[in-house]
């Protein structure tokens, strides 16, 4: 695995400096303190490693606070399920939770839709024409669910695909923002997600500055959404830098 021992885990907290208008929701206006003591615009430290699963073509492990996920990518390979010929490659995503992932006993909340949401986020960024007739399988496993699961899954899956050598237009990074009362918090934990009024998740290509997926649920006002978008764009580009560093480190480590 490719992390230097003793190196500090980098974080991707965005900054709102330099904006012409002051943010509508200031930190002093709080009716909520974050359980882990972070500021509203502070993200958790991000630990990313590639090459976690040696039997897969590519893999990545991500630890964002208490959310721990591992993604393995197999392929491009023949798929028995594919009965028809296809000129472009196919993508198959599967997200599963371990039984010990959440603090509630048993399965916890059902996240069946995460597989198709991960598929939507990834299909815009993989160059399917480079592997005709074959399928790329992405298997994601959530080891511990500590909040913002889908965003961490998407970023980790993009790192695993880059590790497997699948051609992509760019890396993709995902960040989510929660709205509780009058405050916006970035990178929510499970407790905050449980009592949020609205959630906003954005997946974007940091180098191309294009958004591949945007999911908004709950109650939002327009100035709210604008601010959330600015926060996410800034955090996404910072997370993109962290992911690139991780890839470059593991490439040079394996060359030695």
């Amino acid at each position: 695995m490719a992390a230097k021992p003793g190196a500090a885990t980098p974080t991707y907290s965005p900054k709102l400096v330099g904006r012409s208008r002051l943010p509508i929701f200031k930190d002093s206006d709080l009716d909520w303190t974050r359980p882990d003591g972070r500021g509203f615009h502070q993200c958790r430290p991000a630990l990313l490693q590639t090459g976690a699963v040696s039997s897969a073509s590519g893999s990545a492990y991500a630890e964002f606070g208490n959310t721990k996920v591992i993604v393995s990518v197999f392929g491009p390979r023949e798929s028995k399920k594919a009965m028809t010929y296809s000129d472009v490659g196919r993508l198959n995503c599967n997200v599963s939770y371990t039984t010990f992932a959440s603090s509630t006993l048993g399965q916890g909340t059902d996240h069946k839709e995460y597989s198709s949401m991960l598929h939507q986020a990834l299909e815009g960024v993989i160059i399917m024409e480079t592997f005709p007739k074959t399928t790329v399988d992405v298997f994601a496993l959530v080891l511990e669910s500590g909040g913002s699961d889908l965003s961490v899954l998407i970023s980790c899956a993009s790192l695993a695909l880059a590790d497997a050598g699948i051609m992509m237009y760019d890396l993709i990074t995902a960040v989510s923002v929660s709205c509780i009362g009058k405050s916006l918090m970035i990178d929510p934990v499970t407790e905050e997600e449980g009592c949020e009024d609205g959630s906003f998740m954005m997946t974007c290509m940091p180098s191309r500055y294009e958004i591949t997926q945007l999911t908004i649920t709950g109650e939002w006002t327009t100035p709210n959404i604008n601010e959330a978008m600015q926060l996410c764009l800034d955090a996404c580009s910072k997370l993109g830098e962290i992911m690139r560093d991780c890839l470059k480190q593991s490439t040079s480590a394996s060359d030695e």
Partner: protein
Amino acid sequence: MTTELVTPGDVIGKVSELKAGKGAYVNDTTIYASLTGTRRIVSPLPESLDQRAIVEVTGHKAHALIPEPGSVVIGRVTKVMARMASVDILCVGSKAVYEKFPGIIRQQDVRATEIDKVDMHLSYHAGDIVRAMVLSLGDARAYYLSTAKNELGVVSAESAAGETMVPISWTEMQCPLSGQTEQRKVAKVGS
């Protein structure tokens, strides 16, 4: 020739100065990398019309290796039927694939001459290692392969006695233990 590490999405050149090669793609007027690897600049062929240098990105692993039309592959024959032989593709070029791909060699692609008189059972046996060329992506089930060249065909085969046979001509191989000759479409290996 500068070499540096790039990741997918990194800007590696402009269309006005360079052309996009393997591992790179063009969007608008910028060339971006699509793989993680080292960026290299390759000089163009002297006879090509476009004299821009080519920028390409080479990955360090056997990345996303799939059989492509025109590539030479090595495989093992699994089944021999009246008009075709099934092959499991194990290597593409000089690199082994993670998981094997199915391929078939049809009767008309076994050799270049007298293709309607080919007997599949006198060309291949199950278990033979063959070197073949990928003709096309084929159908949903298998890639189409061809051994219709001198250097393509059986490279290694076991005799009925269980010993690795020695090639004695382009149609026969002999078992060193029993002396029996068996018929195969043999590949011409070496100079």
